[in-house]
């Protein structure tokens, strides 16, 4: 094998030991399948170098403090839907009850957001949950669900305002049948 070692082609060498990147400008994308590792490396290094002077040894918080912090964060997340509600409400009021693309989009969002939020309740609080604050997080979750329901109610209010809820007699008129006469008459007049 050593005898064969001498004629290693140049391209193999180039492949194994690529030349250093010129790293001219980052705006030019790399061709497909080509990862300029060296560039990425250099970026990481640069980042490290830039961070290192700032990083100072921090005092690790105690688990209790962590729990309180997490709880605070969780409450923030839970109350987030209600905070945007006045704005939504105002926009819905202003957009009117006619069926237009804007109001339809708003209604769609008004339903999509709370429902998606409800579905993703557990994921939303996953990162704040720990073994010790489970009970408290449950309260937060319930509050979150209530808030989402309130947001949903706004959506329903809007849909009702647009007349899309089948709440009136006229919505069921098509299912009411005409009364048939038992006798018939023909008029030859």
């Amino acid at each position: 094998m050593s005898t064969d070692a001498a004629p290693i082609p140049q391209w193999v060498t180039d492949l194994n030991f690529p030349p250093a990147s010129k790293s001219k400008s980052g705006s030019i994308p790399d061709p497909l399948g080509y990862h300029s590792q060296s560039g990425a490396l250099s970026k990481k290094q640069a980042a490290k170098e830039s961070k290192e002077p700032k990083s100072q040894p921090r005092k690790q918080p105690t688990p209790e403090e962590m729990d309180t912090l997490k709880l605070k964060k969780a409450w923030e997340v839970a109350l987030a839907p209600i905070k945007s509600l006045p704005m939504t409400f105002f926009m819905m009021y202003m957009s009117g009850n006619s069926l237009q693309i804007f109001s339809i989009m708003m209604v769609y969002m008004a339903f999509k957001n709370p429902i998606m939020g409800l579905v993703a309740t557990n994921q939303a609080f996953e990162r704040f949950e720990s073994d010790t604050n489970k009970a408290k997080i449950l309260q937060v979750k319930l509050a979150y669900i209530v808030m989402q329901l309130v947001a949903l109610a706004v959506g329903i209010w809007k849909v009702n305002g647009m007349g899309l809820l089948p709440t009136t007699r006229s919505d069921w008129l098509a299912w009411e049948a005409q009364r048939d006469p038992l006798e018939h008459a023909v008029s030859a007049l």
Partner: protein
Amino acid sequence: MHLPVQALSLSVLLALPASVRAVFQDEVGHIDYHHELLGVPQRETTFFHRPRATEKASLLYTLSDLGVLGAVNPSNGAIVWRQLLAGNGTEGGGFLRAAEDQTWLAGAYGSSVSSWDALTGRNVWSLYLDGVIKDLEVMEITERGGKDVLALHQEQSATVARRIHGTEGHVIWEHKEVNNDIPLQVSTSLEKVFVVTLHGSLLSYNLKVIVLDILTGKKLDEIPLATKDGVQKPEDVMFVGAHSAAPIVAWTDNGMTKLNVNVLGLKSKQEFPLPPDTVEVEIHAPHTVQSSPHFLVHSRTKSGSKADVFHIDLKSNAITKAYELPLLQGGNAFSTSSSGSNVYFTRVTDDEVIVTSSTSHGILGRWPVKAEARKSGAIHGVSEVIKKSGDSYAVRTVVVTDSDDWTQIVNGEHAWTRLEGLSGAVAATWVEIPESEDLARTLEAEAHSNPWSAYVHRVNRHINDLQYLPSYLQSIPARLLSSITGSEGGQSTDKVARDSFGFNKLVVLATKRGKLYGLDAGNHGKIVWSKNANETPSEKNWDVRAIHADNAKGFVTVRGSEGQFIIVKSDTGRTVEAMPSTLFPPVDSAIVVDSDAGPWLLPIERDGKLADVQVGWAPRQTVVTRTSENEIQGFGYMKKDELATPVPIWSFSPLAGQHIVNIATRPQHDPIASIGRVLGDRTVKYKYLNLNTVVVAAVNSETSVLSTYLLDTVSGQVLASSSYEGVDPDKEISCTISENWFLCTYYGQYELRDSQTQNLKGYQVVISDLYESELANDRGPLGDAANFSSLDPVDLPTGPALPSVVSKTFILSGPITSLAVTQTRQGIAIRQLLAYMPESHSIIGIPRMLLEPRRPVGRDPTAAELEEGLSRYAPAIELDPRMTVTHSRDVLGIHNILVAPAVLESTCLVFAFGIDIFGTRVTPSLAFDLLDKGFNKVTLVATVVALFVGVLGLGPMVRKKQINLRWHAPM
């Protein structure tokens, strides 16, 4: 919240004219068709005449048997102008005379005499006199130089002759002869006026000639003429010459063997023998005063016609026979034409046109009639002979043929034909174009066999149909092309076939002259077939009482009042069965009833009587008939042995003193899309939908009170009634009913309730909506019951379930008649009230939204009401020309409008008949399911093609650019 209301009201207001704009200009002649008709011209009142003495061209004038006075351009047969002298349903008659070298025509009809500008058809003057007009003549020579009109009226036991100023229309003198004579005709000479009357009693009349002074109208002489029982009735005197060119009176004896001729002013008469077997004699004399005094006697025998020409010697007053024209077989029409003193007689036979001069029997011209003009026999005609250079002559003859057409023949060539037989229609019905019988039969066979064999049969049929695939594929490019360019390639063919939109339908039309026509409504009302309904033509008008189309079999049944009926195939007009009159009892009408043996047409005998029928044919429904002038009865059939006898169940008469003027029944096809009306606040007002209802309008002539009654036709119960004061009982009162509303229109004077001094007067329409309850969201006393019986008393103190009625009255800007309501396939599109406006000669479509009884009174509508489309009540409705469905056409004398739904929900087919024939399509809710003609398919296809080409061309370019972007790494 103020803004949306305003915006909404604005949008509603803007939408209103859009919904009433009935016809766009580019649709005229495309979706509608119009047969502009005069009626069949009468022999005495048809002539060529020059409207201006200075112009050379003459027009063809006629006063038809329907009382339409019209001028026709002889070069193309187009109508120049028309005037309706009488209302509908007249029996012909009337007089029309032209004054030579004058610009006016004099016409008389009924009791009135009028004068019309010959070129424009404008009325110069009209006189409405007492009595009945008996004759009208133009006095050719007057002392002032102009021409005057002589009119002869028959009043109650008096004969009145009047001389009327020709251009000013005032009576110059009047001579009244008080006796019981029957005035016949009036004639003039240079210094005298002759009034010919019949003196005596029925079956033995004598002629009497009264001689009047032409200047003063004073009676100069009275000459009795003995007729020796020759004259039994006024019609027996066949001819009285109008002026000095034909100063004769002529009549035949009873056996039609001799012709008696008297020269006016003389006491003697001359006799001339007639050919044997003569059935009818006509005398043709020149119309102008300067013509030679020659006349032609046309004797019609059973098989042919013969003519004798006579000359009158004006000095010796002797009549001599000059020559005779031989007896020729077939239909013959003679006519006279004069130029200067020359008189020409034109004879039109089945295959020739022959012109002779009155002086000698030599034939001046003879033209064989070309085949296309030879369809039917000529009955009478008028002609115009022009002498060209040398001895050659040209002749144009306009003849009325026995198929009621009016055809012009120029030198034997067919020039034009006016289909005047279509006029005077009395009944019509829509007919579906029959599908091919084979297909119908196979489909029926498949429906009745077991599923597997039906399936095999169907597959076989479809495989068999494959043989038509190549021709179908071949037709695709042409169809695509015609569809894109908008031309109607497929419709120009003569084949009558259904179309996918349901616009192609047949109309079977019966006229009062006893003719039946099949018209293709999808192809501009073209005549598909025509035929005589009676084998023997009768003088009486055909009184059609019922016309019924059986679309399953493709038959149309027409029943006359004398019991006669005819059943024809709707697509070919072939007679399936015909029954002459008097074999069956006279009928009032006929109606389709259901029985155990299937539906059949039940005849209603005179006075609403019903005959016994066999048990199997007993109608299941209650049959409602009008048993007398003022009584309506409902009959049920009671089974007794083999026969079922009609038993009266209920009867209805209006209040004492009232007589029934109109009865409106529901249309056959009246689908209800929604059983309630959704109000602005989303509550529902439920419609009162009772199929067994009719509206009866009865008026009291003394108190001028009109009452309308809504009757339940099963129980006879009056469901709603109302009275209107100050209604003119002599003007037309008509009603119509549809869905849950009915309306009546009348002329009346209405006193305002809030200010007694104010009167409203005019044509009014009152519309009433019927609801199950006054309250919204309430289905009335019957609640949610799935069915109801009119005979069951409802367990309520109020008795039967009565509708809640909301009414409003509107004042229209003109009279409307012949009401009809549009019908669509499923009843989703809003309804329109179609009506004929007799004063503006057009058909109007009034949207139901405009005639809405729930419009708020005295206040602006609330937001909820606006959402419903209700606008503030305004008592006056302007019959806007934009609402007319006839556009600017002049549609004359419509007395019935038929509607039929198309396959497209938006569209309703309309067919109006009377004197004219008019048909169109209306879209009450606009054509929401049909692309209009303005839709540019070329642009659409071009856009798609351009986009496709663009994508094809740009795709590789973009791909190349993207790849280049990847590879051209910047160095």
